[in-house]
């Protein structure tokens, strides 16, 4: 019975077994044992129990690349997510990076009595409010900063840049003192109950703050709020937008945009912002508005952009490194000296990959978030 609910709405029963998904998949390019086509084939042979015992279930990046070429529109990412719900219920667990610390943080944030201490990064001339129409959803940037700053990763720089840009537009954004994780990673690893708790808390807090528009710098948070929260908790009662979407129509409000030094940049489409939500133009409009910035596209960009190689803090292995190395090599090959992206996770994963001792020097490139690049140019 539950297997029917996995298949329903994902079109897996329509699968033609043509193999276009597997040939497109960034994981199967480096991991020949992983194949979306054969996964569906196994499922259709009524061997789903085998699938749930197989650790390859957790290797899928859910980046949606397989669906780009699928002739019958199988929603493979959603199919994988639903299998993971069943697997989790059955006690299965993915191989989490960092020992599962990030997963623990997310689950800890479901505790109702928790009173977080996450506002210390607001300093200097940044102006924020407790109530207002525009809210900036910070996400887990403070936690990423605590975790990854020893790698030279500055996620709080993203948060400060976002507030700075909004202030420049004469907006004093609301920040939630006790904001919880959006639950994206738990959602994609089968822990739906936890996500529901997080969603309930966040939506209630945002409503109480009187916000009509919520702005995100994280593509994953944005996707989760836009697509998953309405399913989990009903209509939101407020609008959501990625920072790039919020900026693009009103760049005049930022005044003259000029980067400190001429740079050749390339843009990495996060899969959550791109293939999951169809946002490709807004970040590019913002980047092109920066004087002194030359935007060059990688061969595979937009709908065909390759994922950053790791998803939901799990299955980070040599295949992930291979994907990351290939992607960064792509960025270098167009002559760019900077890769800009719109998702803190992409920024973290690429930067972390380059810290590896055996990472090839010729593939190294600076990676930054869009918000910090734009904030530097105002």
């Amino acid at each position: 019975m539950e297997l029917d609910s996995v298949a329903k709405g994902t079109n897996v029963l329509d699968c033609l077994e043509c193999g276009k998904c597997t040939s497109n998949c960034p994981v199967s390019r480096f991991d020949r044992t992983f194949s979306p086509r054969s996964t569906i084939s196994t499922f259709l042979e009524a061997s789903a129990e085998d699938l749930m015992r197989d650790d390859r279930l957790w290797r899928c990046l859910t980046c949606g690349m397989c669906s780009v070429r699928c002739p019958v529109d199988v929603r493979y990412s959603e199919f994988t997510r639903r299998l993971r719900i069943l697997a989790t219920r059955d006690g299965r667990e993915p191989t989490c990076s960092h020992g599962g610390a990030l997963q623990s943080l997310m689950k800890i944030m479901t505790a109702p009595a928790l009173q977080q201490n996450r506002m210390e990064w607001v300093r200097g001339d940044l102006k924020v409010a407790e109530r207002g129409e525009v809210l900036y959803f910070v996400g887990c940037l403070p936690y990423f900063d605590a975790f990854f700053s020893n790698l030279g990763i500055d996620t709080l720089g993203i948060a400060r840049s976002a507030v700075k840009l909004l202030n420049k537009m004469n907006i004093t954004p609301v920040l939630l003192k006790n904001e919880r994780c959006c639950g994206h990673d738990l959602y994609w690893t089968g822990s739906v109950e936890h996500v529901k708790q997080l969603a309930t808390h966040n939506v209630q807090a945002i409503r109480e703050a009187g916000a009509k528009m919520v702005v995100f710098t994280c593509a994953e948070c944005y996707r989760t709020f836009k697509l998953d929260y309405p399913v989990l908790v009903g209509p939101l009662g407020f609008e959501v937008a990625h920072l790039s979407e919020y900026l693009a129509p009103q760049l005049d409000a930022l005044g003259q945009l000029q980067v400190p030094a001429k740079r050749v940049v390339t843009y990495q489409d996060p899969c959550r912002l791109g293939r999951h939500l169809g946002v490709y133009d807004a970040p590019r409009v913002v980047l092109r508005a920066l004087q002194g910035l030359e935007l060059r596209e990688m061969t595979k960009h937009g709908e065909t952009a390759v994922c950053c190689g790791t998803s939901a803090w799990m299955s980070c292995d040599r295949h992930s490194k291979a994907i990351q190395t290939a992607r960064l090599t792509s960025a270098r090959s167009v002559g760019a000296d900077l890769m800009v992206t719109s998702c803190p996770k992409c920024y973290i994963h690429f930067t972390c990959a380059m810290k590896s001792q055996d990472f090839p020097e010729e593939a190294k490139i600076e990676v930054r978030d869009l918000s910090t690049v734009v904030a530097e140019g105002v």
Partner: protein
Amino acid sequence: MSEPQQFQPKIVAFACNWCSYAGADNAGVNRIQYSPQFRIIKTMCSGRVSPAHILKAFELGADGVLVSGCHFGDCHYLFGNYRAVEQFEKAKRLVRLLGLEEERLRLEWVSAAEGVRWAKLINEFVDQITRLGPSPLSRNGRK
């Protein structure tokens, strides 16, 4: 009339195999009395205790977490305790962000011969956590 239920803190103590766990053993062998409100998790080295273990303990309802290993210069693995400090500092930053009191997390060095010190440390820590009250993540704190 029964007394109102006293708060009994749940404490997780990570103790390294060579020094701290042996120190706890020493306390037992010498019949030293001390508070029972803790569970020892033996690790080969205090450097092995990562933020993941500490956060997992809190996630599952621990009111306090203690990490204990060899004194500097005495580490069985030479530099494991320096690694322990790095991991501990990272965990401390995360715990602070979560809004938990910093006193709920503690790092100490206890050698194999320091049974008395181990007992005193545990008593101190239990008293401290008792004063702080239940963690907001524990079953008590969630109600």
